[in-house]
């Protein structure tokens, strides 16, 4: 149903993930990610305020920018972006890769996670303007102004809690679904392509109030499989709603 996937993202929240760009740390990670072809780099974190202050964040990235593993202050964030011409792959492929990458990472830096997250965003195929309005009507019950003047740009966000088993643990997940109508441009080999489409995003993550360090390597794959399953189930329902 999704025609253009924008990104996949996996976050492993833990204290002390803000690894410093130091030679010994980089040496260990270069070794760990040798098969992935990741290279070390830094990104500047800017403090926005009266005086701009900077500090550096260590990242490992693929040379074409498709993959990025950022060591943020409270989470290690793996992101796969849709780089024009490379194809982003299936959610299952991403989960397998993320699982492998975090297996390697947690071997050399054994963080214990407090929270896990999976997010993805994509665009549906093009629809004509009447169809786009129709989608809005199927999802939202408008006040009279917007009934008379159908919105050409809109967002919806639904957040629900949902309990799942991750191995020996029962975890509460936030299951967030965004359905929006957005305009923008997509980078294509032939040049930027303007679009006006329905965007669907998922952000599935363990409940924010539970901050007990409890996640290890084994939980990464279990969580990702569960998150992908939930997002795919919801996607089927969205399809039914839009086509129904």
């Amino acid at each position: 149903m999704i025609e253009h996937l924008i990104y996949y993202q996996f976050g492993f929240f833990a204290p002390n993930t803000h690894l410093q760009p130091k030679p010994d740390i980089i040496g260990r990670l270069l070794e760990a990610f040798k098969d992935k072809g990741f290279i070390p780099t830094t990104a500047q974190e800017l403090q926005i305020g009266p005086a701009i202050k900077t500090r550096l964040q260590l990242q490992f990235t693929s040379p074409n920018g498709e993959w990025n593993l950022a060591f943020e202050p409270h989470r290690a964030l793996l992101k796969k972006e849709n780089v024009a011409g490379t194809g982003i792959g299936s959610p299952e492929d991403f989960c397998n890769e993320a699982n492998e990458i975090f297996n390697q990472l947690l071997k050399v830096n054994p963080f214990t996670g407090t929270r896990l997250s999976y997010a993805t965003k994509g665009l549906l195929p093009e629809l004509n303007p009447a169809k786009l309005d129709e989608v809005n009507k199927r999802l939202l019950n408008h006040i009279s102004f917007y009934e008379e003047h159908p919105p050409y740009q809109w967002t919806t966000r639904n957040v629900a809690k949902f309990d799942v088993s991750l191995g020996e643990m029962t975890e509460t997940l936030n299951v967030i679904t965004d359905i929006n109508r957005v305009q923008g441009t997509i980078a294509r080999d032939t040049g930027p392509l303007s679009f006006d489409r329905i965007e669907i995003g998922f952000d599935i993550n363990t409940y924010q109030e539970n901050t007990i360090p409890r996640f290890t390597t084994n939980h990464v794959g279990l969580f990702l499989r569960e998150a992908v399953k939930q997002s795919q189930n919801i996607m089927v329902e969205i399809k039914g709603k839009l086509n129904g």
Partner: protein
Amino acid sequence: MDETFAILAPTALSSETIQKTPPEKTDLPTASTTAIEPLASETSTLAEACKLAQVGEIRRQFTNRFLQLIHESEFEYGFSTPADEYVREALNTYGPFAREWINVLFLENFSDPFVISAILRVIAHFDYQQMSPQGMTMAAACTSHVDTGVRECCVRCFESWGAPETLSMLRSISFSKDWLNEYLTNVISDLERLTNHVVSR
């Protein structure tokens, strides 16, 4: 005091590449969402947005001029080039920003052995600390570069810097070419001798 940090991504200040990270001195974030937020929510005033835009413009000017000098300069080991002088000036004026601009340029041109080798030759002429940590991460990134000349340049960086703190990392590297491995081993030996000398003094 709450400190809000945004990550300035390598290529542009777009909403897709700016990211909010949790305040350093507080507990874990409590929001349900973990997705990336747009820049609009990061800049509370127009003045702040303008400051960022100015930095972006200076970066663009620096990058263009540095690239031009790279293409005009003749790089020869042991000799300084106008590109070196330009970077020296930028480091004096813009400090850590200049190092990061070079890093961004490096990433953008990673597949171009000529530009990458030139950047490595320039940064090799500076003290390790002056270029740290970006100089070190750039050289480390090139240990797996497909171009042998680039890999040689990166070993030369570590040789030129003579920084014993890079030893642990250099020991984890190996190359497919024997002569390059031999060169690396010699650099490691020199650094070990340097470390022993410092300790024994």
